[in-house]
């Protein structure tokens, strides 16, 4: 498989993807606006953003499907804008397009071999089937599978050439929570195998759970990047104390002198925590009937990060 080894680039050989001031305009619409980031070998990178943020446009530029209108991007050291380099990139990347469906009337196995045949070398179909946990469905036609299983076939297909980097464009959108977890399981397995994964998603919990590095993109621009912890620490805001199911009544029972509390999610009381306040608050709560309620301390999530950065929340549908 010697021709599968990417050309080494002096001093930057561990940079699998490098994006430098990349832009893409569709007419007057600036879909991607001057973004820069990079992916290191073995990393799971999440590109997190709402509908229309420019995620697909960016990924498809890296997959050599679209031409950038500004800036540069390299994948495995090859320039995505150079024709001869594109051929080299295609041999070495794995792609799961957004909303991908395999061929309806081919079986799981046949689909894997179909897409595998497009490459010079392909991984053994049975090994991939095992990886995505589809052994019982191996000879089932694609159209007969449920949404979650279909998506796992897509994952297997994206890995068929043993790629150096896998681009997964919204791999769990539209799946039920159970199926989403299964897909996460596969991505975790890839991570443990040391694969570099470029994931786009509008699910905050998905990015938080899977990603080593998260870049938040909104209106074509990257508004924050870092590990999930870094993002939460710097943009997530304060921890919150939650008193479950306390209701209006609970608000009245709160001891005086606390930070301003609010009611959330039909009856939960939320109290923002400042550093070092937790013990005092808990002690004063112990004097009230609220001490019998379920009390927890919630760390901010990427949801809060996004809210703090943009003033909006992203819905389940990604809007």
């Amino acid at each position, binding site marked *: 498989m010697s021709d599968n080894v990417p050309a080494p680039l002096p001093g930057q050989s561990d940079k699998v993807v490098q994006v430098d001031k990349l832009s893409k305009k569709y007419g007057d619409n600036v879909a991607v606006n001057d973004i820069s980031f990079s992916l290191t070998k073995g990393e799971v990178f999440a590109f997190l953003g709402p509908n229309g943020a420019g995620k697909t446009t960016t990924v498809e530029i890296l997959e050599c499907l679209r031409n950038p209108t500004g800036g540069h991007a390299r994948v495995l050291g090859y320039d995505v804008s150079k024709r001869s380099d594109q051929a080299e990139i295609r041999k070495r990347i794995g792609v799961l397009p957004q909303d991908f469906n395999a061929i309806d009337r081919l079986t799981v196995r046949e689909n894997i071999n179909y897409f595998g*045949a497009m490459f010079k070398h392909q991984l053994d179909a049975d090994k991939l089937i095992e990886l995505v946990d589809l052994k019982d469905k191996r000879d089932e036609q694609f159209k007969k599978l449920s949404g979650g299983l279909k998506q796992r076939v897509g994952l297997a297909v994206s890995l068929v050439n043993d790629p150096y980097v896998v681009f997964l464009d919204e791999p769990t959108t539209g799946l039920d929570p159970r199926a989403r977890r299964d897909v996460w399981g596969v991505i975790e397995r890839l991570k443990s195998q040391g694969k570099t994964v470029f994931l786009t998603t509008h699910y905050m919990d998905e990015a938080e759970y899977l990603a080593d590095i998260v870049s938040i993109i909104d209106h074509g621009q990257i508004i924050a990047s870092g590990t999930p912890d870094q993002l939460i620490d710097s943009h997530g805001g304060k921890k919150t104390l939650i008193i479950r199911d306390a209701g209006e009544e609970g608000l009245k029972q709160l001891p005086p002198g606390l930070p301003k509390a609010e009611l959330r999610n039909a009856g939960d009381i939320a109290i923002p925590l400042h550093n070092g306040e937790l013990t005092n608050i808990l002690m004063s709560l112990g004097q009230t009937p609220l001490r019998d309620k379920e009390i927890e301390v919630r760390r901010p999530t990427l949801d809060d990060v996004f809210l703090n950065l943009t003033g909006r929340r992203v819905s389940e549908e990604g809007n």
Partner: protein
Amino acid sequence: MRSRIYTIISGHFKSWYRSKSNIFWTIAFPLLLIVLFGAIFGSGSTKFDLYLQNQDLNANTPTLYSHGYINALNNTGAFNLHVVAAEQPDPLTYVKSDAQPHNRGQRLLVIPLGFNQTLKNGGNATIQLYMDQSDQASASLAGIVRSVTISYAASIAGAPDHLIVQQVGIVTKNIRYIDFFIPGVIGMTLLTTGVFGAVNTNGRYRELKIIKKLATTPLSKIEWILGMVGYQMILATISLVVILFFGYAIFGVTATIDIYTVGLVVAASLLFPGIGMVLANFVKEAESADAAANAITFPMMFLAGTFWPRETLPDIMKIIANFMPLTYVNDGLRDALIYAEPAQALTNTLIALGLAAFFIVLGSVLMNWKEE
């Protein structure tokens, strides 16, 4: 290493034979049409068609003996007599052109001017019977005409040898409706499988992101198109063979497969998928592309002489038919398979190949392999 084109062909082919509706539309439906149309129009009556021109008129009324002779023919009940006007200067050509659309045998009996007079004078009158010796019915038909003639001559003159039937051989292929119809069904099947196949593998595969996925692999657009065309050629060959086989088995339609047939099948497998690709690129949504394909294939099917000869169409429709690619495929297939007219087959094959090159190139250029 398996070839990419082979993989694409086999993928399309598996998808085809695993779909019951595909099998229905490409195999069962054409056969159903053949059986239905063949049963309705294909089997002529048990009487023999016979065109008759009576030139022996007196002030526009048949003379006594010619009238009597025609009656005698009629009384046998063996003939459907079709009268050709006496003014018709070239009755044979008329018969040739009239018989085919009406699905009749091409046989002509001519009673000459002076028939009545000659017999009255005790001379020898000659009747001409034009017919194709290879016509299956020729022997029995000639036999009946001869015996009617002999007994009629005996009844009027007491001398059977006064009336002579002169048999003139003409070369016609006796084309029945079903012979005409079978190449049309082949053309229709090539049209629908080609157009709808391309709409499906380009329009629908694009919607399913299969094309996008393939575009991220080393596969090239040309390989993809070659794979599709290769698959269409296999399908076209299967259709041709199956339809001809059943045409022969059920209706005894004998067809000659020659180089033009091959050329036309190749042309059709480029031309109709090419049209489908053009459609799929103009109408982006797969479902609308399907509707557009219906809107194009149905009128084409009817106007291009699939079910009945274009000669029967109104003039304006005939002109429109000249712009329908299927017209040339249908005509070429008929010339090649049934009429054995190599010169006409060549012309139609060349036109079909030209159209094929145009549409497949246009479809390929229009197709977005990468950026939408």
